[in-house]
């Protein structure tokens, strides 16, 4: 109930804005948008265009208001008709949205599908924001946001460049049923460690692989990073640090265990600059 009231309110407020935009030289901008991917939704909110969202996927949980939008399910397992029932005119889709058959059916009904570049880097973030701003036809407002974001990214990179040492980092990811997986090459976690000028102790492997905790101990990480949910599943900071296999690592001895929200840390959304600096300091044990 509150949902429909909210959207009615949103349309009441923003409807005239859309109407005036239609009169501009470019063709009618999309007004009913489904965003697929936590980073995409966050970018739309940061651009101040959340009133155009009619639905989001299950990974879009930030900002909090996004949770009140209809949920089309996991963005890799969409149902064509469910998405169409929201009468969208555009889908802003993360690179791995699918299945392809569902996307094809949705676009065959005449819905525009805009696919995001698959790139875990500051450049990739800028290209995503640019694409979304152009799709929503935000003009100068979008370019101004990009300028601000580029400045924030540059500033973050300068701060990190001035930090000493290259700490060895082990990034643990939830495996579902207890056994943790570590992030190797070609992962968002590895990209983040690189941006924070750390060394990924698990870089010999590709993707997320289950590891024996003994191997993790032998890697002697200076810091162990993980998502909040993973830390909770493993029993909290003390349980992790007291784990027999991890107990003797430098990270456990100094309690340098970095736990943050998953989308904040690995989403490569608009909060990337602060996530980079925060992470870079945390893996060096700097309290900011």
């Amino acid at each position, binding site marked *: 109930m509150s949902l429909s009231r909210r959207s009615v309110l949103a349309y009441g407020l923003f409807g005239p804005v859309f109407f005036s935009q239609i009169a501009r030289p470019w063709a009618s901008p999309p007004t009913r948008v489904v965003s697929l991917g936590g980073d995409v939704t966050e970018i739309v909110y940061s651009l101040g265009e959340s009133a155009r969202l009619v*639905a989001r996927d*299950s990974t879009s949980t930030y900002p909090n208001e996004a949770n009140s939008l*209809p*949920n*089309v*399910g*996991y963005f*890799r*397992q*969409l*149902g*064509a*008709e*469910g*998405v*169409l*029932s*929201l009468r969208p005119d555009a889908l802003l889709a993360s690179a*791995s949205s699918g*299945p392809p*058959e*569902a996307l*094809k*059916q949705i676009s*065959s*009904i*005449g819905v525009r599908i805009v696919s995001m570049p698959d790139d875990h880097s500051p450049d990739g973030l800028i290209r995503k924001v640019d694409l979304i701003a152009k799709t929503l036809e935000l003009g100068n407002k979008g370019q101004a946001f990009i300028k601000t974001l580029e400045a924030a990214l540059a500033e973050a990179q300068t701060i990190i460049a001035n930090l000493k040492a290259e700490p060895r980092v082990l990034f643990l990811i939830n495996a579902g049923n207890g056994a943790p997986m570590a992030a190797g090459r*070609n*992962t968002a976690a590895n990209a983040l460690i690189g941006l924070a000028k750390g060394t990924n102790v698990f870089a010999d492997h*590709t*993707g*997320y*692989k*289950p590891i024996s905790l003994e191997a993790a101990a032998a890697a002697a990480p200076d810091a162990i990073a993980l998502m909040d949910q993973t830390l909770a599943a493993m029993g909290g900071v003390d349980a992790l640090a007291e784990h027999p296999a991890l107990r003797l690592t430098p990270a456990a001895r100094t309690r340098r265990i970095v736990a943050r929200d998953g989308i904040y840390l690995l989403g490569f959304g608009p909060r990337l600059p602060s996530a980079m600096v925060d992470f870079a300091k945390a893996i060096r044990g700097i309290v900011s």
Partner: protein
Amino acid sequence: MSTIQETLSADKPGLIRDLRQSQARWRLLVLFVLAIATIGASIASLTIGSVAIPFQDVLSALLFPSNAATTNSQAVAIVEAIRLPRLILALCVGATLGVCGAALQGLFRNPLADPGIIGVSSGGALAVALLIVLGHSNAPETLAWAGPYALPIVAFAGSISAIVCVYALSWKGGATQGASLILAGIAINALVGSALGYLSFASTDEQLRQFTFWTLGSLARSNWATLWPAAIAMAFTTLAVLQLAIPLNLYLLGEREAAHVGVNVEALKIKIIVLTALGVGTAVALTGIIGFVGLAAPHIVRLLAGSDHRIVLPASALFGGLLLVAADMIARTAVTPAELPVGIVTGAIGGPFFLWVLGRYRYASLG
């Protein structure tokens, strides 16, 4: 186990004699009700969906697509591009799984037999996983010529290979034994399972997600391009298995007894196995592994209408189709705009029904 054997022994004399009239009438009624229910569910599944489309729009979209385009083009597009291919896929896959399950249970005289047990499903899934993990990264152009058909073709090849292995392993002294076929199937399943496990370890994140689809099962990938060849293969399988009702009835007497009354036992086995590989291999290729239908549909039918394959085979096909159409309808509307995996629903609605039929049957036989 015992319930099936009771059913079998109770019916043995009836197989050769004519059916008693009342029994025959009841069985035809079961078949008739199943047919009506399947047609009803099909109409419902075209009408019900997360996009509300009035029944007359659905009707005009189906009958006069060119006329309807002027009135409600979105309704036409949704019915034609999304609901209809999905309904046909659900009917074909459900019928194929049901009829193949019934034939395999008859062939092995084992109530636990289903297309999964002789390795057809997992063989197909393994082949797909191999293609996704090894093929696409090392030689992406290998199967480019096959376009959207690449994965279905590979899945079918995997199913055939698995079943040929099983058949060869259980071949001894010029014949195969039912029990050794099942044991060979279990062994092949174990090997395939461990190979799938290794591939999921070796795969990247993206590949892993791609092939969990094949091991979970879903009807969401239905589209016309891959549907036609697959629907023809599955329809052929279903119709061909239906022709085997009489030899399968005689086979219930026992393998040797069936041979004595003139059934070519080895040919019957090969026919059923090849047809299962064709039908279920194609089904796995399009939808991944959908469990429960092949196992439960024939059982429910047997409990309702006895074990005469002339009824069991067509009724299992109808019931399999009905179960999958109904399950898919719930799967795509229960949590709209999202979708549930169809396997969850087949188990959730099929399981309690199975238990109810089982309880009723036992009660009746005791009374």
